[in-house]
């Protein structure tokens, strides 16, 4: 006979519709919980307010990504195709890439050829921003993640179909076996279950 240690992950309560979930979220927020979440098949308009969530920090990351893209494109093009860095006394930058500027189309080889570089600067700004969005999002969400205690719940699989859940985690300082369960019952949660995590 083997024994497995289990750790309580939290309480999971099911709700029938968006409206009930929304009001439930307001109650949990007002009860002062922090480590909790609502799970729904689609994003619910206004739920951030109901939960008291802060705004996502993703735009700041993406802005940095975009700036990086612009800079990379500027450096790539000016180093390989102009004398801009030598004129600043930074000729070693050009020596590194051992370049032959392409002198065609009667376009200048100094910094004043910059407008011809705008399209690539624009494209790399977008490219870097988009990848920053993707990877920044994954980092903020803590995904990809292969398993999660919630996946142990049979009912939870319906979150991606037509059911709505509130999960209050045991990590929350206000969590208590009885108090949290009572709160979930009071706000109309159904099929309340204790989700455990094997350790």
């Amino acid at each position, binding site marked *: 006979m083997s024994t497995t240690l289990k750790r309580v992950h939290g309480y999971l309560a099911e709700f029938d519709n968006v409206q009930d979930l929304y009001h439930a979220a307001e109650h949990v927020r007002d009860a002062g919980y922090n480590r909790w979440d609502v799970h729904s098949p689609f994003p619910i308009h206004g739920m951030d307010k109901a939960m008291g969530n802060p705004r996502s920090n*993703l735009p700041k990351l993406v802005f940095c990504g975009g700036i990086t893209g612009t800079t990379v494109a500027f450096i790539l093009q000016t180093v*390989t195709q102009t004398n801009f860095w030598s004129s600043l006394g930074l000729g070693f930058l050009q020596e590194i890439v051992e370049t032959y500027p392409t002198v065609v189309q009667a376009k200048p080889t100094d910094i004043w050829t910059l407008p011809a570089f705008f399209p690539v600067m624009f494209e790399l700004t977008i490219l870097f921003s988009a990848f920053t969005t993707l990877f920044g999002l994954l980092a903020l969400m803590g995904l990809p993640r292969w398993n999660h205690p*919630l996946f142990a719940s049979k009912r939870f699989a319906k979150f*991606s179909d037509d059911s709505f859940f509130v999960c209050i985690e045991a990590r929350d300082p206000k969590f208590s076996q009885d108090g949290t369960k009572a709160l979930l019952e009071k706000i109309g949660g159904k099929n309340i279950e204790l989700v455990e995590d094997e350790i």
Partner: protein
Amino acid sequence: MEASASNTPRILDREPLVLNNRSYSWITNRICGIVENKQPALWWILFVPSVLLTGLMVFCFAYLISTGVGVWGQKQPVAWAWDITNFVFWIGIGHAGTLISAILFLTRQKWRTSVNRAAEAMTIFAVMCAGLFPAFHVGRVWMVWFLAPIPNANAIWQNFKSPLLWDVFAVSTYFSVSLVFWFLGLVPDLATLRDRCRPGLKKFFYGLFALGWRGGNRHWSHYETAYMLLAALSTPLVLSVHSVVSFDFATSVVPGWHTTIFPPYFVAGAIFGGFAMVLTLMIPVRRIYGLDDLLTPKHVDNMAKIILLTGTIVGYAYCMELFMAYYSANPYEAAAFTLRGLTGPSIWAYALMFSFNVFAPQLFWYRPFRHNMWVVMFVCMCVNMGMWYERYVIIATTLERHMTPGSWGEYSATWVDQWTFVGTFGFFMMLFLLFLRFLPVIAIGEVKGVLPQSDPHFDDHAEKGIQEEDLMAYPDRHVAKPIAA
């Protein structure tokens, strides 16, 4: 006058985006059912020829590699012909997908949710087809990595001042960003498929790409921000891609190409042709897979209106080109258009372009035509062909009649040109059919999100009986006549 409860003015509901009050689980079952059930016979009837045509495309490219790029029909003076025409054609197709997923998202057009997934898939597959042509056009396709800014033994870097290189960056960025956008949109739906599968290989792969999605609002919050950011990034991107494609022509000194109208004209044409392709694909899909409640006549109607709008912009651009050729008093410019439309060897192509792109969509002014799927399909087929001819007219017929008559020549496509192009259709169809087979064709989560019951204040609205936003936006349009007691 007494106003009883029964005859107080009511607000007419907007046409619902999902018909017959379908529930969340109906939507899940219907869309996942396409992936989970056996495919209809028609799927196989289309899939087998598509695979064969893909094989033909591979053969044509192999023949080109082993023999030389001369197996295509272009020679001086027509150095850009079917290949570049096909490139511009396919890349243009993609634009509708990004327009639907990004621009209609930013403008809060909720009806986009039923079409955006398939349209984005179409974008990605069309860009894949497009990319093949310039890659093989360079002549030595195994040297195509020279297009990428990688240090090489020759110490020669790309000419970043050339519109052709801008194009490399624009198209590759477009492909990458479209793929990221599409994948991000798929994640919640892949989780739905994962949760419905029995343990096994399928569940493994859906689970792998669903990234462990749990639909938590703390995730949705970041996710929606990311989606908005990608939409905001894709919007200028999609406008830039076809603008940059048009720079390939507009920055040259060839009469008929050297015009400032090209970027907006190309972008409008791309969206126009792309929407025709979206409808060409989606009208059969909604019928075959029984998605009529999700892809309603309202959706088709909206897209037909966009085709009418962009087709009219394209028509305006055609006329403005002619006017500028006359008004600029530039004899070469004037000659280019006279030869294109009146006296040159390919006036048939110009006539086809004009009638397919400008005249055919005018049918959409009439509402019953926009609601008749056969008429819509007919117009879309015209537009699909017309937009190919537009590029052919711009590219090949212009080069046939260059500056001096001494450098004039005639162009005709070879069988390799023709079968390569047909082959890319097979490749495109094969990818699209595989997409139907393995991935949810409609964004399940997004469609659920636009149902009326998904509004957290739905109950309050139901009590009041009116939607105040509607009242504010349209003070009188939504007020119905009082119902007689």
